[in-house]
């Protein structure tokens, strides 16, 4: 591990990561700024939005990041991670949709790109640690020596839902300086540092999908790859097997969705599941969306090495979900866990992450099976 204390800051060109670079630099920490080029915006021109503003890897964002680095006087480079991003994030994202699940690409990106390839690149350049603009906190447990992940001070900005996959090694080398601040304070800091992005708007959720229209993105990606539309078409059916209509793409539906079904049987209908084998979208009444339990797979524990006995936790099953009280039960396969909610939860969606909390502490998380 290098001893010079060099820290690589992942700079997106937004106000958060720019503030991180500025804060560390102000403290006298040796800093190098890196922007990850993750997606070639010349691809899929049919879904390109005008100018590409607010999208990842747009020239505007790289320009902003470069301006901030120049303003601070820190070394700055753009690194090309497009290949890894497509392999580890974009393709799995699309395959998950086709497999009847609703993926969380940001978690994949964190696990494999931001805290994977980026960490490797930082180390290659002599930086032992990386810093990002994530809203989350890392604590070291003095007794166990484990690196703990905690919710951000700014609850409304907390990003721990996307960070449950980080290993102890990754957490030990990551810094999240913004976890201690409220967002308005971060903007103040950016202003105080004279950063040219201090007033820049927030970025959208899925960075590589323009305007959040992931269905259009998937359609365009299929056209580029020469994949036929028939791979995604199918029927809309009820749980008891009645066919109500046809749909144009299974990736257009997610559990709990009501809009866009274009079938009417006199009462409100919701997507309750999608069947990857037949590409069927199964619809039903609101009550059919409620589930009292679920299996969580590919579990990563952060607060302790393994679950050995039943445990109480609050579980978030999507980013905007208010964590629901539940009990976690170990299973014979240590990578899986059974969760039983105190109250049945609406739209437990396969492919989304389930993140287990004890108050502000992230116990661990996994993928809803």
């Amino acid at each position, binding site marked *: 591990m290098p001893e010079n204390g060099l820290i690589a800051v992942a700079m997106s060109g937004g106000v958060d990561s720019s503030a991180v670079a500025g804060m560390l630099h102000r403290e006298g920490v040796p800093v190098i700024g890196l922007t990850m080029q993750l997606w070639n915006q010349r691809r899929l021109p049919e879904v390109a939005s005008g100018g590409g503003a607010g999208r990842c890897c747009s*020239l505007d964002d790289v320009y902003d990041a470069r301006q901030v680095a120049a303003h601070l006087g820190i070394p700055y*480079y753009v690194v090309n991670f497009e290949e890894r991003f497509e392999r580890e994030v974009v393709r799995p994202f699309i395959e998950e949709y086709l497999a009847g699940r609703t993926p969380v690409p940001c978690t994949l990106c964190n696990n494999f790109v931001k805290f994977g390839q980026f960490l490797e*690149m930082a180390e290659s350049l002599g930086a032992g640690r990386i810093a990002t603009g994530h809203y989350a906190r890392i604590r070291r447990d003095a007794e166990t020596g484990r690196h703990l992940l905690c919710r951000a001070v700014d609850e409304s900005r907390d990003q721990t839902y996307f960070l449950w996959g980080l290993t102890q090694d990754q957490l030990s080398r990551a810094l999240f300086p913004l976890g201690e601040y409220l967002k308005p304070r971060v903007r103040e800091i950016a202003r105080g540092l004279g950063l040219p992005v201090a007033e820049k708007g927030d970025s959208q959720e899925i960075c590589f999908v323009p305007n959040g229209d992931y269905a259009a993105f998937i359609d365009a990606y299929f056209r580029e790859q020469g994949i036929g539309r028939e791979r995604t078409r199918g029927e809309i059916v009820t749980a008891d097997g009645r066919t109500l209509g046809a749909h144009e793409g299974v990736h257009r539906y997610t559990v709990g969705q009501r809009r866009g079904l274009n079938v009417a049987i006199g009462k409100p209908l919701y997507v309750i599941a999608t069947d990857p084998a037949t590409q069927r979208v199964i619809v039903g009444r609101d009550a059919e969306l409620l589930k009292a339990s679920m299996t969580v797979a590919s579990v990563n524990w952060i607060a302790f090495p393994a679950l050995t006995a039943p445990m109480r936790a609050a579980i978030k099953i999507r980013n905007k979900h208010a964590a629901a009280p539940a009990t976690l039960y170990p299973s014979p396969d240590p990578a899986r866990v059974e969760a039983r909610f105190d109250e049945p939860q609406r739209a437990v969606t396969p492919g989304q992450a389930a993140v287990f909390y004890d108050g502000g502490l992230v116990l661990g998380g996994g993928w809803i099976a």
Partner: protein
Amino acid sequence: MTRYYFDHNATTPVAPEVLDAMLPLLREDFGNASSIHHYGQKAKQHLETARRQVAGLIHAEAREIVFLSGGTEADNLALFGVVRNAPRACKHVITTAIEHPAVLGACGQLEREGVEITRVRVGSDGVADPDDIRRALRPETVLISVMHANNELGTVQPLAAISKIAREAGVVCHSDGVQALGKIPVDVEALGVDLYSMSGHKVYAPKGEGALYVRKGTPIRSVQFGGHHERDQRPGTENVPGAVALGRAAQWFTDNFSEESERLQALRDRLEAGILARVPGASLNGGAAPRAPNTSNICFDGISGEAHVIALDLRGFAVSSGAACSSGAVEPSHVLLAIGLTADQARGSIRFSLGRLNDAAQVEALIEAVAETVGRLRNLSPAGRAHA
């Protein structure tokens, strides 16, 4: 931090004598070369002196030199000017897979406009085979465009043999000479080319100036429209300071060519010997072919060229890997893929290009820095540990 510049194929600084020559054109001799008064005449004199100097370096006649904005414009004028001028309905252009984007991009646009393009492959030595060019000829072929020296490998293409094929077939022959000028002897008569692109900023003149050699009688038309400058081939008020700078730079190479190319070759050979001796798993790309004496392209197995370039920059050494895209990130080089390298090998390759800023002590420091950097990067990467 002391900084060392080993990226002269990307660009060069303006040489002191070049700057001295162009400064009066920015100050007192600022006239428009088309004006009839004293100021215009003075500017015109400087412009024509520069034209003779450029012509002298490549053994052309002064009236065969068209000044324009740089290598990309020269390539675009050559390709579009010849193709648009050709009378036939079906048109075909032959080029190679390892051309600079200025040529490949122009060919791509010609293709969208209905022109057929053949991109001849090159061997693993980075050289095109004239027989492949001959085989690609068609009755509707109007232009053959083959670069003189490759920007990434330095490999020199057999231009004389290729231009002979063109001449026999009655086809215009263009060469992008941007990376050859000042590095290898350029004699447009001996090479037999009709069109030859040159760039100022690769030969210690400023960016934004270049020239196209147009052999007298070559069927070409202008692709821009306006005034009657540059014998109707390139409208627009001449950039006299830029042309004077390019002329002065050409003069320097006319006067110092042999000495400088021998000096650079000795430095380059020492650099290659030093790196290959010190670094396991390093191999020369395009090393078997005749090369420009200043260029060295080396593949380092198992490490990312991108990390390598940044790590060296943080130590003060400027080198290059692949081609920078618009954001500044690195993409694997189409040239290295074309000579048969895998994507990983292409990504692991580094181009060192020497020039007037370099001396023997810098080369020794670079060898040391590369050896240390590669050693450290290999220790971090699982694939690289095999070489450690």
